[in-house]
């Protein structure tokens, strides 16, 4: 890649969301905003090789995109009297500030994640407008056909227009209700990237990196929201294990078996600092608690050194905040580590009796593991078989088959 291409790629990454957010704010037209941002990038690739990379590449792109928008609106306005175009044009002319008001990206992300939009539309629109992924890239990331993804984007933008979803950050009294949706979309993106990264198709966009990038932007734009910092810390802790999660054969390596020398300590340190600052605000929430749990693992130098009683206590806190079956299952696993497998098994069996998670392979897998540790190998084998039936990926199946074989050997 040439120096110019590298510069454009870097700037694109950093500036795309900002440019699109600003243009939507000025023109009210999402498609126009994207197209003008795209044109500005194309123009940069044409001009910079000859003219050199500008000193402030972001400002160059923003100005170019804005000029493009103004020209297009001018042409459209000569066809018919369109008041909105005229108003937008005067804003484009007057507005001198090239850096873009920081709140524009906040407006954009809250609008993309508005509860009135269908969930998969929120995810797609966030990736398209804030991260600048193409429709093809987003489709590839979620393994759906491109026309399907294109339709989701069209539908979401149409709903914003036709149902009158305003381009605004929600008022303060609504932020507690609306912020979780934004955090949820970012975390979903991270998990899509994280879970898919084992045996990853390296031609798929790195959703983990995109999610962390969005998490950084959000944490910077919402300094008074500790959950934003909590989410970023959580993603950093998980991402720090990226190279240790997989073995040479592409199989999953369990947390306790990972080579901790391969964990990125710089990333962990950043996560710890973020989390500490967030917790000091004294307003705990689910992302901060999950990050605290992840921090316990990340800062334990060996698996044996893990502070399981602390983790179990944190899970008690998490269950209070988010009492879903998955969280309760994770707590059971932590309790088993802190207080012994029998204590954990009691919680797992309570969960099974409640009828929850009947198609989630990790429930019978957890049960099997606890039975194994109690020396009940026949029962363990039965549960591993049940888990195998529910497993969804080859990596999961290989892991469970190994465990099953071991259990049978021990009967």
């Amino acid at each position: 890649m040439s120096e110019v291409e590298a510069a454009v790629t870097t700037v694109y990454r950093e500036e795309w969301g900002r440019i699109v957010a600003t243009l939507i704010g000025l023109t009210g037209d999402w498609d126009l905003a994207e197209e003008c941002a795209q044109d500005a990038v194309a123009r940069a690739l044409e001009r910079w090789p000859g003219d050199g990379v500008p000193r402030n590449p972001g400002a160059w792109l923003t100005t170019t995109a804005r000029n493009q928008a103004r020209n297009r609106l001018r042409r459209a306005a000569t066809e018919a009297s369109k008041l909105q175009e005229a108003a937008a044009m005067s804003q484009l002319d007057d507005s001198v500030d090239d850096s873009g008001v920081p709140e524009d990206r906040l407006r954009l992300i809250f609008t993309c994640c508005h509860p009135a939009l269908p969930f998969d539309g929120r995810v797609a629109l966030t990736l398209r407008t804030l991260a600048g992924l193409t429709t093809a890239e987003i489709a590839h990331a979620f393994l759906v056909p491109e026309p399907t993804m294109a339709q989701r984007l069209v539908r979401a933008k149409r709903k914003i227009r036709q149902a009158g979803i305003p381009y605004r950050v929600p008022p303060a009294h609504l932020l507690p209700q609306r912020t979780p949706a934004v955090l949820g979309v970012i975390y979903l993106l991270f998990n899509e990237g994280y879970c898919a990264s084992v045996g990853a198709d390296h031609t798929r966009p790195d959703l983990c990196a995109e999610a962390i990038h969005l998490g950084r932007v959000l944490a910077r734009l919402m300094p008074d929201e500790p959950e934003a910092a909590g989410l970023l810390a959580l993603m950093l802790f998980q991402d720090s294990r990226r190279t240790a999660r997989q073995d040479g054969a592409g199989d999953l390596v369990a947390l306790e078996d990972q080579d901790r020398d391969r964990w990125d300590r710089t990333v962990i340190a950043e996560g710890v600092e973020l989390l500490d600052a967030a917790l000091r605000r004294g307003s705990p929430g689910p992302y901060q608690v999950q990050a605290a749990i992840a921090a316990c693992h990340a800062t334990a130098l060996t698996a044996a050194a893990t502070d399981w009683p602390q983790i179990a206590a944190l899970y008690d806190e998490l269950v209070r905040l988010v009492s879903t079956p998955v969280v309760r299952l994770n707590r059971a696993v932590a309790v088993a580590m802190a207080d012994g497998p029998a204590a954990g098994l009691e919680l797992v069996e309570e969960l099974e009796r409640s009828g929850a998670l009947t198609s989630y392979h990790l429930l019978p897998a957890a049960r099997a593991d606890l039975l194994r540790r109690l020396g009940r190998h026949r029962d363990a084998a039965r549960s591993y078989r049940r888990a195998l039936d529910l497993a969804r990926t080859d990596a999961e199946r290989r892991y469970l088959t190994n465990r099953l074989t071991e259990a049978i050997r021990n009967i």
Partner: protein
Amino acid sequence: MKYLLLICAVESETVVPFQHLDHPPPDPETEEWVKEMDARGLRKFGHALRPTDTATTIRVREGETLVSDGPFTETKEQILGFDLIEAEDLEEVIAAVSAHPVARFGTIEVRPLWPS
């Protein structure tokens, strides 16, 4: 922007017990909401509807007028009433609708009108 609100709930638990009457008993909370929305200029008009067993469905197919009894579709909740709202944007409508008493136990659909 104009929106139609469809106020929905399980009619057997709400309206049906009063279906033999000429007027349902007044609900002070709903009247309060209506008064407030009228005063703010948000609500243009609206009304409560008789239950769905007074509904008649009409279709004309191949020149024949087909009249039948009952609502056009069976649903878990039924439309109890409607309101025509004019608001700045969807957020204003959401704020107004979340104060409606039926929102606490029923469902309110918000549908934008095609522009005139």
